[in-house]
């Protein structure tokens, strides 16, 4: 998980997300003030370079950072962590 997590934090800090809240693994995207469209956008940004189909990622309302990382890890072709 250590490879993706720092990238995800960096994504969230920069435009278009510009999250200013503290980012933790347990935080929901709602906590981070990232709305549903933002979560979907983030999923695309993460999935595209890994060759994962973004439509395979589930994005429920209470999705946490960790839950997203778990899904990406599971679907990653080379088991990226």
């Amino acid at each position: 998980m250590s490879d993706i997590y720092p990238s995800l934090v960096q994504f969230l800090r920069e435009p278009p997300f510009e999250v200013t809240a503290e980012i933790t693994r347990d935080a929901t995207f709602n906590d981070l003030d990232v709305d549903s469209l933002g979560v979907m956008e983030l999923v695309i940004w993460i999935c595209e370079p890994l060759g994962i189909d973004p439509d395979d990622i589930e994005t429920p309302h209470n999705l946490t950072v960790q839950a997203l990382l778990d899904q990406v890890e599971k679907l990653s072709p080379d088991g990226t962590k």
Partner: protein
Amino acid sequence: MTGDAVVVTGLGLVTPAGIGVKTSWDRVCRGVPTAARDPEIEGLPVDFSCRVPDFDSCLSAIGRQPWRLDRYTQFALAAAQEAIQDAGLEPEDWDRPRVGVVVGTAAGGVGTFEREHKRLLGKGHALLSPALMPMFLPNMAAGQLAIAFHATGPNLSASTACASGATAIGLALSLLRAGSCDIVLAGGAEAMITPLCTAAFAKMGALSRRRDDPERASRPFDSARDGFVMGEGAAILVLERYGHAQSRGALPRAVLAGYGASADAHHAVAPHPDGRGAELALRRALGDAGAAPEEVGHVNAHGTSTTLNDLTESAAIARVMGPAAPAVTSTKGVTGHTLGAAGAIEAAFTVLSVQNGLIPPTANVQSVDPAIELDVVTGAARPAQLQLALSNSFGFGGHNVVLAFGTADCLSGGT
């Protein structure tokens, strides 16, 4: 003039002539053209345009996550921010349900639409941005203004092609006269200088082909004009009933005295050859303002620099005004044609003309077309005390809109 008169208390401009009212007005009055080669449309039959200069540097000032807004909405937000400040209003404090928003645009977020379509074809549907729809929709500038400035009153968008911004201002006037709002943020925004739109306008022969001399390509009323130059930008006017402005001590820049609209009902893109629709809109605006042609000191013309528009528009102006012959200018010589934003941008310039007693020159005119029998202001800005001035806007589809602005001097002591 009563407290029910509708006045302009704030202006905001984002134009190829500059960001902000002062910068834009100064360049327009100096008649310095803005057209230049545009790398984003390189390789097309027309590869020059009038861009808003250095706009990205102000993005951080228009609120959080501007990157999730299409460029046309970004323009509208920046213009609204300036207009609200200019009017001395505090959105945190205003009576939210009494504040309306009307924004015109011809194509909305077409830049985002084009980019994402390319992505769909290249990478497939799964990688489409989920923000495409909320960035693209033509009502979104009005919606985002309401969100940014807590305006929960009537919220509308207008789409009448290149008359959109003027239509929006006309609709705002109706809302205020009907008592539906105390304040309306009204104007237009456009960001259509994209490869597809530029190629499409070029294909229909609407654009100037003066590739060897782009700076002088936009030349309204000139004998050698050969089409318009694509521009972009936004203008927002703060409109309110005079009684409301008085109650908060605001000083009006001008009075929005009249609005006239008509349809050519003739052809999708060509104006009626006799300018009948334009004439009707002019007469209606004068009638709405309760004014006679001889009271009009100035017309900010639609003046696109196309052969047909300038000819038919000038004929309509000449017929309506008769021997009164007001001074006519087209600020598109400087800004290019900002399409759905043009009606609002030029309305703002007309307000500034009335307020400052100054008519900007039509840039790039070397020799006025002899078929155009108007007093075209060329060379340098012309000082003039204006009681009433008109702003013309016409759009594909045969939409014609004329706005009439009167001096705020008539308000003093008369209410």
